[in-house]
C-alpha cells in the first residue's frame, strides 16, 4: 500500500492544461521529489493531493484512504508546507504555532510544548514573541515549516521549502527534512533545485508542462550517464590545441573543447589520465589539472526533459552549501 497514490490526475484552468495524466506512488517512509521548472504543475499536484483543489479526472489515495471524492478524509494525517509563507501576520510566532496545532485538535499543554520545542530547534526561540508580519523571509519560511509539522503528521507535503532563503537557513531546513524522513515521515517535496532533489530524495519524478516525464531512483536515473567516462583537463594557458593531431593520436576517445584551455574527453572505456597528460606536455602544454567528472542529476534532467537547466541552475548556484 502506498502512502500517497495519484492515478491519472488531470486538471485544467481554462485553456491551461496544468496537469495531464499524472500518476505516481510514494511508499511509506519514502522521501519523494517532484522536480520541475516554473509552471510545471508541482503546486497544482500538491493542492489536489491535499484537498485544496479538485482534479478534473483521476484518483487519489492517502494512506489507503480514497480521497478522490472526500478530500477531507485524510487531512488529519497530512502536514502541508505551502510555497508561500501564509501564517497570520498579526500573531506572534509562538501564537501562530499554537493556533495551527489547535486546528489539528492538540490539547493546550501539547500545543505549548510542541511550539516551544520547534521554535528552539529552528533557532527562532528569540523571535517567539515577535509578530510573524515582522519576520524576515527566512524566518517566515522556517516558521511556516514548523506550522506544517506541529501535529507530527505521518505524511508531509513540502512545496519548495528552501526557495528564496539564504544558504545557511536552507541547509538547516534540509537537515530538518532529512531528520523527519529518518524518523519515519513520508515526504513529498517539490523543488526546482536539482542539487536539493539529488541530496535529499530517494526517488524523483521529473515533471514538465503538467506531465511526468520520468520517475526513478537517483541511482537508476544517473546510471546510464555513469556508463560513460568523462574527464576534463585544464591547461595553464588558454592556449589553442591542435585537435586533429590529438584526435588521431587517441582514436577511441571523443574530444571536445568547452572553452579555450579546457579539454573534455569522453569514452565508453576507462580513461587513462597519465597518457593524455604526457601527450599534452610533450606537445608544449602545461597541464594544471586532470579530473574525472561524475555525472550529475542535472545532466540526466537536461537529457531527459530537453529543458536547459539554465534558469534552474542560476537559482541552484545560490543554494549550493
Amino acid at each position, binding site marked *: 500500500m502506498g502512502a500517497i497514490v495519484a492515478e491519472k490526475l488531470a486538471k485544467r*484552468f481554462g485553456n491551461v492544461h496544468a496537469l495531464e495524466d499524472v500518476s505516481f506512488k510514494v511508499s511509506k517512509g519514502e522521501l519523494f521529489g517532484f522536480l520541475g521548472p516554473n509552471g510545471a504543475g508541482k503546486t497544482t499536484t500538491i493542492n489536489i493531493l*491535499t*484537498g*485544496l*483543489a*479538485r482534479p478534473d479526472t483521476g484518483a487519489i489515495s492517502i494512506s489507503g484512504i480514497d480521497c478522490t471524492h472526500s*478530500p*477531507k478524509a485524510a*487531512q*488529519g494525517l*497530512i502536514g*502541508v508546507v*505551502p510555497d*508561500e509563507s*501564509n*501564517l*497570520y*501576520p*498579526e*500573531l506572534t510566532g509562538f*501564537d501562530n504555532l499554537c*493556533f*495551527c496545532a*489547535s*486546528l*489539528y*485538535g*492538540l*490539547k493546550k499543554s501539547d500545543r505549548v510544548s510542541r511550539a516551544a520545542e520547534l521554535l528552539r530547534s529552528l533557532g527562532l526561540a528569540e523571535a517567539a514573541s515577535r509578530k510573524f508580519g515582522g519576520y524576515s523571509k527566512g524566518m517566515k519560511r522556517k516558521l511556516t515549516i514548523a*506550522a506544517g509539522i506541529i501535529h507530527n503528521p505521518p505524511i508531509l507535503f513540502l512545496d519548495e521549502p528552501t526557495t528564496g532563503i539564504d544558504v545557511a537557513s536552507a541547509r538547516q531546513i534540509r537537515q530538518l527534512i532529512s531528520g523527519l524522513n529518518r524518523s519515519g515521515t513520508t515526504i513529498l517535496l517539490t523543488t526546482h533545485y536539482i542539487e536539493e532533489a539529488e541530496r535529499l530524495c530517494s526517488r524523483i519524478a521529473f515533471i514538465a508542462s503538467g506531465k511526468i516525464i520520468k520517475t526513478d531512483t537517483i541511482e537508476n536515473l544517473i546510471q546510464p550517464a555513469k556508463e560513460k567516462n568523462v574527464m576534463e583537463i585544464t591547461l595553464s594557458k588558454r592556449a589553442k590545441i591542435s585537435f586533429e593531431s590529438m584526435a588521431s593520436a587517441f582514436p577511441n576517445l571523443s574530444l571536445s573543447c568547452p572553452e579555450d584551455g579546457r579539454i573534455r574527453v569522453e569514452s565508453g572505456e576507462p580513461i587513462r589520465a597519465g597518457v593524455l597528460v604526457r601527450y599534452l606536455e610533450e606537445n608544449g602544454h602545461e597541464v594544471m589539472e586532470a579530473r574525472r567528472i561524475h555525472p550529475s542529476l542535472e545532466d540526466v534532467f537536461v537529457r531527459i526533459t530537453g529543458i536547459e537547466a539554465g534558469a534552474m541552475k542560476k537559482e541552484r548556484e545560490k543554494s549550493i552549501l
Partner: protein
Amino acid sequence: MKTWIAFWNIILKDMRAYYLKPPNISWGIIFPLAWTGMFFIRSGGGFDGVLDLLPGLMAISILFGTTSMLAVTVTFEKKGKSFDRLLLAPIPLGVLMLAKTSGAIVFGIANAFVPVAMACFFFDLSRVGWLTALPAVILIAVSSTFLGLFIAVSVSEVFEAQTFSNFFRFPMIFLCGLFFPIERLPFFIKPLSYIFPLTYGADILHGAFNRAHIMPLGLDFVLLGAFCVFLFLWSYRNIKKRWIM
C-alpha cells in the same frame, strides 16, 4: 472533541487578531453611538419617540458591525492565503464556517446593545418585550453575518467585499422599515423590502418595543430563520465551488 478544540480556537484567534483590537472596539462603539446620537437629536422626541427609534438603531448597528467584519476575517485571509490553512485542517467545512462567523455574530449582538445602553440612561425600558427582542437580535446578527459571508465568499478582494456590501447595506436602511414603516414606500419598491431578511428582524423589534409590527411575529421568526439557513447553505456551496477549485 478535536473538532471542538479547532472550532473554539478559530473563534479565539479571530477575537484576538481582529475583534478585540482597539480600532475595532472603538468602531463597534462609536458607529452605533453616532447613529444613535444623530437620530435622538434629530427626532427630539420623548419616550415614545425613542421606542420608535431603537429598533432601527439596533438593526443598523448589527448590520454594519457584522458585515464589515467578514470582509476581514474571510476575504482578507483568503487573499493572504492563510485561509488555506483552515481549508487544510481536518474539520468539516460547515464547522469551519460557523467558527469564522461566530465571532462576528457575537460582535453584532454587542453592537446592538450600544444604543440600548445609551437609551437606558434616560428612559425606562422595562416595558420592552425583551423575551421577543433578544431572540430577534440574535437572529438579525446571524442573518446579517451570513449575508456578509455570502458577500465575502463571492469576491476575491477586500475592497470588492466592502463595495459589494455597501450595495446591500445602504438600500437596506431605507427598504427594511428601520426608521419608517415600509407601507410608506412607493408601491413599486415595496416588494423589494421583502427580499431582505432585515425587514423581518426589524419588524419583530418594532413589535417588541412598540407593538408596531406589520406581520405576525411567528411568521417573521420563521422567515428570518429560513434566510439564515439559505444564506449559510449558499455560502457553503460557493466556498466549495469557488475556493476548492
